[in-house]
C-alpha cells in the first residue's frame, strides 16, 4: 500500500480489522464484534502488555510503518493507534536513523575496588582512576547517551547539594519515583552522597491504574517515612497527591530542580549505613522494606562477581527496571563496581520491542546480561523473524559473545530455556551461557549460582511422590513420563553464604526431600524497615532467615520449587500453584499469564479448597461454562486432582506486582471478600476519587503550613522588635554592667514572648559579682541570646566573631557587650584580644568566651582560644565551663513532630587555670574542653 495515498477512513477500518483478527485468535469473538474506535483497550477489550506488543507487530506489518515505542503501552483506544499510524505517514517514518552508536571501551576495566566499604567509595574510585571511561550507554528511543564516571559523580554531587540545601539530614529517606533515565542514576548517588537513604519505587505506568498505584505507594512511603520524593514532571498530579498523604514528606521535587545551584564537589557528609530500602514486590502481604546496607550490597556484588568469574573485558546490558533489586543491584551497581560498561534500556522499550534487547546485546558485544524467565519466553515466541534480520546499520544479530545469560527473578521453566536456545542458536547463542540462579531481595539480590559455562541441569521427578510426600524421586532417563515435574538446578550458595533446607519442625531434611529454604550470610538483610513484627517472623535465633521458598537438595545443588505460602495443600498433597496455572493456561479462551491458583480455607469444613481464578474475555454464558469445564478437566488431567472452584473474571481483575508477577495472596483476599469482580474506572474518576479521599489530608497540611508560617512570622517580629528597642536602651546605659543587665532582661523577655523554653542547670557555680571567665561551646547561632537569658549574672562577650551569625537586630543589641578596645595608640589598634580580656577582667566583669568554631561543632572538635584562659590565670579568676545543647532548635525552621524543642544550658564546676607558662595553659584548656564535653553528653 502506498502510504501517502491512504485516507483516514481506510486506516481506521484496517486498524479495526487487525484488532478483530487478534481478538478472535485470543478467544474473545464477542469483544471483537462489539469493538469501536473508542473501545478501551483495557476495559472493553482486555488487552494486556503482551497483547499490546503483538498488536504493535501486526499493525506495523500491515501498514509498513514503525511506531514510537511508548504507543504500545500508552494507547488507550484503537483511535489512538490510528492516529499514530497517520502521524507516522505524515512524518514519513521509515526505518529510523540510528544516530547513536555504542563504542567499545579502549581499555580493560581496572581491578575492582576490593577495599571499598561503601558504594560512594566505589564510585569515587572509578571517577578517580578512570574518570572518562563510559559507565553507562543509556539507550533512548532512537538515540542514546554515554555517561562517564566523572559525569555521574559530578551531577550526583550537585543533586546532593540540592538535597542538603532543602534540609535533608543524615539517615533520612528519599523516595525515587523515576523511570529508567539518566536522572535516576544521578538521584540515587545524590541521595547517598547527601547522607540519605534512597527508596526506589516504581513509577506510575498507565493512567488507568492510578488508584491502586497511589494506594500501594502511599503505604510504602509512609512506612519508609520519606522526607523527599524525587519524581519527574509528567507525574506532577500524582506526586502532589502523595505529598499530601504522607505526613513525613517535606517536598516533592525533580532532579533538574535539585541540580540548580553551585557545583562544589562532593559534600562532606558521612554516608548512611543503609544503602537502599528495597520494597519487595513479593506477592504476599503489605509492602516490606528490606534494609540493605552498603556492606550487604558489596558482599553480594562481590559474590556474583566470583560466581560469574567477571573479566576486565566484560560488557553488560540490562533492560530491567531500576527500582527492582535485579536491575538496581544485580545489573547497574554490579557493573559500576567492576567498571563493566553497561548498556541500559528501559523496560518499556523492551516490552514494546523485545528485539531491541537482543540488538543491544549484539551491538555492544555484551557478555553479561540478566533477565527473568518471561523475557526469554517473550523473545522465543513473539519476535518476528524480520526483526532479527540485519539492522539498519548493517551487520547480523550476533549473540555469540554472550557468555552469562542469567535467568532469575521468577521460577525458571525448562521449556523456556529450550525454546530460546533453539531459536537463537543460529545467532550464535550457546545453551551453556544460561545461568539459572536463585535470589531474593532479603539476600540483596542473589543467593545461589550454578557454575558458568554449563548447560542447565534439569531434574525430572515423579509427580505422585513429590506432591504427596514432598520427595523428589528422579524419573529414569530412559523412560518418558508425561506427568513428571521438572525443575532447573540453581547451583550452590555464593561464597560466605549458607543455605539449609529444613522441615516444619526446623530439622534438616535429607537429600531430595522438599523443605523450607533458610539462609544466612553477609548479603543478608538485617530486617524490614520499621517492621519488627515481620522481621521477627523470618529470623531465627541462630541468625538464619526464612526465604519463604521451598526447595530440595540434589547432587550438591539446590532446586527451588516454589513459594511456601502459595503452596496449596489439598487431600494431603502439596500442590505447586504454577503447575495448576500452567495447566489452566492451555485452555482456549483463558488469558495466558493472568491466572492465579491458591488454597482458600473453607470456614465450614475447615479444609483447604483449591481455587483457580482466571481472566477471560469471554462474556457469553455458554462460553463461560465451557471454559470452566475445560479448566477443571485440564487441571485434573495434569495433576490428577480437580480444582474445587473455578472463577472466571474479566481482564485486569487479578492484581499483579510491579514486575508483572501474580499477587496470589491478594487475589485470595479479594476472592474471599467477594471483591474480585470490581472493574476498573476511567483515569479521571480515579484521580478525582484520590483527590477527594485526600482532601482531609490536604486541608490539614495547608492549615499546618499556615499555622507554622504565622508562628514563624510572629516569633521573628517579636524577637526583632525586642532586640531593636532594647538595643537602643542598651547603648544609652551609662555603664557596661547596667548595659549587660538590660540585655539580659531583654533576652529573657524575647524568649518569653516567643514561648521558647530553656532548661538551666548548675548556675550556682557561677560566682556573682566577681570577675570570672565562662567558656562555652557553640550549639546554635542564638547561643549568646540563650546564655544571656539563662545566666544569673550579666556578662561581657570576649570576641565579636560570635555575633556574625546573629540576626541584625540581635547583633545591634549585643554589640555593646563585646569587651572594649583599649584606649591607646599603637599596633594593633585597640590591643590584642588577650590584652582586652585582661583589662575587662581587671575591671571586675564576668566574661563569656565562646569556642571559635561554627555553631553546631561538637566541643571536642572546637577550637578554644587561649587568650581568655591566660587572662583568667593572670587575674586569678575562676573559669566556669558551660555546655550548650539544643540552641539550634530555638526558632528552628525544622521541627520534628512531637515534643517541643528546648535548649539546655548546663553549667559545670569551677576550674582554676594554672599560671606557670605556655604549656600549663594548653593543659588547662584540655581540662576545660573535657569538662564541656562531659556537660554536653550528660544524660537528662
Amino acid at each position: 500500500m502506498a502510504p501517502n495515498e491512504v485516507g483516514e477512513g481506510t486506516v481506521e477500518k484496517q486498524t479495526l480489522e487487525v484488532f478483530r483478527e487478534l481478538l478472535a485468535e485470543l478467544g474473545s469473538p464477542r469483544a471483537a464484534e462489539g469493538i469501536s474506535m473508542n473501545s478501551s483497550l483495557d476495559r472493553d477489550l482486555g488487552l494486556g502488555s503482551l497483547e499490546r506488543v503483538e498488536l504493535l507487530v501486526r499493525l506495523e506489518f500491515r501498514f509498513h510503518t514503525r511506531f514510537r515505542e511508548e504507543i504500545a503501552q500508552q494507547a488507550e483506544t484503537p483511535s489512538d493507534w490510528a492516529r499514530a499510524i497517520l502521524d507516522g505517514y505524515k512524518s514519513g517514518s521509515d526505518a529510523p536513523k540510528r544516530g547513536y552508536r555504542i563504542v567499545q571501551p579502549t581499555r580493560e576495566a581496572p581491578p575492582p575496588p576490593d577495599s571499598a566499604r561503601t558504594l560512594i567509595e566505589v564510585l569515587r574510585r572509578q571517577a578517580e582512576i578512570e574518570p572518562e571511561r563510559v559507565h553507562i550507554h543509556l539507550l533512548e528511543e532512537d538515540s542514546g547517551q554515554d555517561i562517564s564516571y566523572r559525569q555521574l559523580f559530578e551531577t550526583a554531587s550537585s543533586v546532593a547539594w540540592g538535597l542538603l540545601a532543602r534540609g535533608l539530614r543524615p539517615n533520612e529517606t528519599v523516595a525515587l519515583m523515576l523511570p529508567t533515565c539518566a536522572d535516576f542514576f544521578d538521584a540515587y548517588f545524590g541521595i547517598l552522597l547527601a547522607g540519605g537513604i534512597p527508596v526506589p519505587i516504581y513509577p506510575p505506568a498507565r493512567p488507568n491504574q492510578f488508584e491502586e498505584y497511589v494506594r500501594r505507594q502511599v503505604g510504602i512511603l509512609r512506612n519508609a517515612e520519606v522526607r523527599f520524593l524525587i519524581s519527574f514532571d509528567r507525574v506532577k498530579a500524582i506526586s502532589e497527591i502523595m505529598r499530601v498523604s504522607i505526613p513525613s514528606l517535606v517536598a516533592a521535587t525533580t532532579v533538574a530542580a535539585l541540580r540548580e545551584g553551585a557545583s562544589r564537589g562532593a559534600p562532606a557528609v558521612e554516608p548512611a549505613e543503609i544503602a537502599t530500602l528495597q520494597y519487595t514486590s513479593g506477592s504476599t502481604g503489605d509492602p516490606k522494606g528490606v534494609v540493605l546496607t552498603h556492606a550487604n550490597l558489596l558482599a553480594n556484588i562481590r559474590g556474583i562477581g566470583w560466581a560469574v568469574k567477571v573479566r576486565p573485558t566484560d560488557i553488560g546490558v540490562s533492560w530491567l527496571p531500576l527500582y527492582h533489586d535485579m536491575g538496581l543491584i544485580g545489573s547497574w551497581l554490579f557493573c559500576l563496581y567492576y567498571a563493566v560498561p553497561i548498556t541500559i534500556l528501559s523496560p518499556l522499550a523492551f516490552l514494546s520491542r523485545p528485539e531491541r534487547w537482543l540488538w543491544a546485546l549484539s551491538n555492544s558485544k555484551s557478555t553479561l546480561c540478566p533477565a527473568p524467565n518471561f523475557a526469554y519466553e517473550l523473545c522465543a515466541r513473539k519476535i518476528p523473524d524480520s526483526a532479527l534480520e540485519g539492522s539498519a546499520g548493517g551487520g547480523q544479530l550476533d549473540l555469540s559473545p554472550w557468555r552469562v545469560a542469567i535467568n532469575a527473578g521468577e521460577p525458571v521453566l525448562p521449556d523456556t530455556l529450550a525454546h530460546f536456545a533453539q531459536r537463537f542458536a543460529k545467532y550464535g547463542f550457546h545453551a551453556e551461557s544460561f545461568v539459572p540462579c536463585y535470589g531474593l531481595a532479603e539476600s540483596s539480590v542473589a543467593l545461589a549460582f550454578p557454575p558458568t559455562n554449563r548447560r542447565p541441569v534439569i531434574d525430572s521427578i515423579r509427580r505422585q511422590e513429590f506432591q504427596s510426600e514432598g520427595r523428589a524421586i528422579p524419573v529414569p532417563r530412559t523412560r518418558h513420563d508425561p506427568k513428571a515435574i521438572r525443575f532447573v538446578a540453581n547451583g550452590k550458595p555464593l561464597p560466605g553464604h549458607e543455605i539449609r533446607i529444613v522441615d516444619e519442625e526446623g530439622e534438616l531434611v535429607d537429600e531430595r526431600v522438599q523443605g523450607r529454604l533458610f539462609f544466612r550470610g553477609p548479603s543478608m538483610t538485617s530486617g524490614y524497615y520499621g517492621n519488627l513484627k515481620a522481621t521477627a517472623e523470618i529470623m531465627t535465633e541462630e541468625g538464619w532467615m526464612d526465604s519463604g521458598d521451598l526447595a530440595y537438595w540434589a547432587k550438591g545443588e539446590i532446586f527451588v520449587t516454589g513459594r511456601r505460602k502459595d503452596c496449596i495443600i489439598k487431600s494431603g498433597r502439596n500442590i505447586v500453584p504454577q503447575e495448576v496455572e500452567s495447566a489452566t493456561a492451555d485452555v482456549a479462551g483463558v488469558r495466558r499469564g493472568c491466572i492465579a491458583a491458591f488454597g482458600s480455607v473453607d470456614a465450614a469444613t475447615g479444609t483447604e479448597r483449591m481455587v483457580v481464578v482466571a481472566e477471560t474475555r469471554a462474556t457469553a454464558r455458554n462460553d463461560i461454562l465451557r471454559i470452566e469445564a475445560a479448566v477443571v478437566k485440564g487441571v485434573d488431567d495434569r495433576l490428577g486432582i480437580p480444582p474445587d472452584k473455578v472463577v472466571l473474571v474479566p481482564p485486569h481483575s487479578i492484581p499483579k506486582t510491579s514486575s508483572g508477577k501474580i499477587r496470589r495472596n491478594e487475589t485470595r483476599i479479594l476472592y474471599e471478600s467477594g471483591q474480585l469482580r470490581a472493574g476498573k474506572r476511567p483515569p479521571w474518576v480515579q484521580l478525582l476519587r484520590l483527590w477527594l479521599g485526600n482532601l482531609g489530608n490536604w486541608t490539614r497540611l495547608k492549615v499546618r503550613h499556615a499555622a507554622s508560617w504565622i508562628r514563624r512570622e510572629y516569633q521573628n517580629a517579636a524577637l526583632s522588635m525586642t532586640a531593636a528597642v532594647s538595643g537602643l536602651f542598651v547603648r544609652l546605659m551609662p555603664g557596661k554592667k547596667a548595659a549587660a543587665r538590660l540585655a539580659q532582661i531583654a533576652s529573657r523577655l524575647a524568649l518569653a514572648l516567643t514561648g521558647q523554653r530553656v532548661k538551666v542547670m548548675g548556675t550556682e557555680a557561677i560566682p556573682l559579682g566577681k570577675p570570672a571567665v565562662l567558656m562555652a561551646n557553640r550549639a546554635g547561632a542564638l547561643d549568646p541570646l540563650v546564655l544571656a537569658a539563662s545566666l544569673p549574672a550579666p556578662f561581657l562577650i570576649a570576641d565579636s566573631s560570635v555575633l556574625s551569625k546573629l540576626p541584625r537586630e540581635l547583633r545591634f543589641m549585643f554589640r555593646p557587650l563585646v569587651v572594649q578596645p583599649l584606649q591607646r595608640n599603637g599596633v594593633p589598634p585597640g590591643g590584642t584580644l588577650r590584652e582586652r580580656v585582661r583589662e575587662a577582667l581587671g575591671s571586675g566583669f564576668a566574661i563569656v568566651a565562646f569556642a571559635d568554631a561554627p555553631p553546631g561543632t561538637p566541643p571536642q572538635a572546637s577550637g578554644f582560644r587561649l587568650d581568655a584562659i591566660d587572662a583568667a590565670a593572670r587575674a586569678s579568676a575562676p573559669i566556669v565551663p558551660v555546655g550548650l545543647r539544643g540552641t539550634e532548635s530555638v526558632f528552628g525552621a525544622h521541627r520534628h513532630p512531637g515534643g517541643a524543642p528546648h535548649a539546655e544550658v548546663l553549667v559545670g564546676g569551677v576550674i582554676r587555670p594554672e599560671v606557670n607558662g605556655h604549656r600549663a595553659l594548653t593543659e588547662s584548656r584540655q581540662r576545660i574542653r573535657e569538662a564541656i564535653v562531659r556537660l554536653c553528653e550528660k544524660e537528662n
Partner: protein
Amino acid sequence: MTDIAEVFHQNELFLTGANGFLGKVLLGTLLDRYPGFAHLHILVRPRRGLLACDRFFSEVLGSPPLVPIVEKITAQRGKDFLREKITVWSGDVGEPNLGLDASAAERLRGRVGAVINSAGLVEFFPPVDASFRSNVDGVEHVVAFAKGAGAKLVHVSTCYVCGTRDGLVEETEPILGFYPRRKGLEDTSFNHAEEIRYVRALIRQIHDSSLRLRSGSPTLTGAEARTGVAASGAENGTSRELAERLVTLGKHRAASWGWVNTYTYTKSLGEQIIAAAESLDYAIVRPAIVESALRFPFPGWIEGGRTATPLVLMALDGMKEWPVREDTPLEVVPVDLVASAILMVTALLLDSRSERLYQLGSADVNPIHLGPLVSLLSEQSRKREYNNHARTAVPYVVRKLTGAPSDSRVRFVTAEELRPRRERLQKRIGRAEDILAATRRMLAVARLPGTSSLAGWSTTLRTLGLQASFRDQTLDQYLPFVLHYRYIFESENIRAAFALISENDRKLVPWDPERIEWKDYWVNHQVRGIQKWIQPETARNWTVRV
C-alpha cells in the same frame, strides 16, 4: 636563654629548597645575621644544563635579594668565605637518598646538626605523582637522610593542611591520623601509610593502563599507524589524558578526606610521615600565606605569583563586587618573619627546647579583615588610575555591558548573587562578538570600509571575555578556601619560642606580627612589590595553573 649564634656556631646545617622564595630569604637571613655559622650544606638540583654548584651561585646568590648581602659579606670576610662555609650538593629530594651517592652520604654522617627541609611543590592541582614526588616521597627521603646522618629535622609545611575550617585551628591538635573531617581523637579511619600505599598503587595502575593503550593502539588503523604524524598525535593525546587522570586522582583523594587541594593533602601526608618516624627529633613549621617582605632583605621583596597576588591584581583592575565575607581575616605573614621563625625553631630544636609544631599566623593577635582590605586596595586602584592606561574603550564597554559604573563603591555579595551576573556578562560579550562578526561580514560583502576598525573592536571584546573568565576561574577555583572560610591559626608556640631566645637574638630574628601596620604593609610593600617584582603574566600563569 638560647643563644642562636652559639648554637649555629656549633652545629652544621643542611638546607633543601634554597632556590625557592622562602629558601632564598632564609639563606639571606642566616648569612646576614649569623655569619659565624659553622657550615652550611645546600642540596640543589642541577637543571637546564647547569651544574648544581653553578646554579646555586648564579641563580640563588645572584638573585636581587641576595646580591647586596653577598657583596657585604665578601667585603667584610674575603672572597673565599662563602665557598669555604657553604658546600653545594647536587641532588634531588625526589630521589632515594636525596640523589646523593654513597660516599657523599658517608661524608655527611655525624656532621650535620639539623636538616631544614623547605623543598616542596606549591602547585595546588598538579598531577598527583608530581605532588607525591616532592611532598611525600621527598619527605620520606629527607627523614631517612636525617636519621642516617644523625641529624634533627625542621620541616616547612603549611597551615592550610587543616583543610576547610571555620574558626580557630589549635596547635595542640595531633598530627598523626589527622584528616580534615576527623570527628575526634577516637576516629582512626585515616592512616597515612595506608593512604600512601593506596594512591601509589592507583598511580601505577594509571601509568600501566596508559602504557597498555599506547602499545596496543587499538584505535589506530593500519594507514594511520604508517603515518608518523597521526601516531605522535595519539601519543600526545595519551600523555595529556594521562596527566589529566593524575590531576583528577589528586583532586578526588584530597576531596574525599576533606582537603581543599592536592597540595595541602600531600603536605599533610608529609607531616604525618615525620610524626610517625621513630627516633627522629623534629619540629614542623607551618606558615600561613607567605607574602612580601616586611623589612628584610628590603621591604616589598616578593617573587613568583604568590597566593594573594590575584587578589591584589583583581582589586587594582577595578573589581567592585567581591564574593567574600567582610569579617574574614586574611592570614598573611611576611616572608622575613617566616625566615626568622624557622631559624629560631632550628636553634631551639638543636638546643632541645622546642615544641613539635609551630603555626606561623598573624590573625590571632593582629587580624586584617577582608572588608577593609578590599576597600583599601580598590581605593589604591582609583588613586593610581591603574586601569586607565591606554585602553579607554575597554572601561566604557565594561560599563555598558555590566551596567556597573567603575567608580562605584566596593560591594560584598554572595557567590550565588554574583554567578548569574557573571554569566550574563559572558553572554553579552558573546552576543556583542556575534553582532560584530555579522556586521563585518556584511561590510565585507558590500565592500564598505570599516572592517579593520571593527576587527580591533572584536579583539578588545575577546580580551574582555578572557579577563572576565580569568576572574571567574580565580574566584571559583582557588580563592574560595582563602576567602570563604574564617581561618584563625593559633600561633602561641612561636610566641613562646620568641620568649626563650636572648635579647640580642630577638632583634636579629624578630617575630612580631602584632606590630605590623597592615595598611602600610599592603599599600607600600605588597602592592608595590607585586608591581615591581611580578610581571602580570607570571601571576596570571600561576593562577591558571592553580
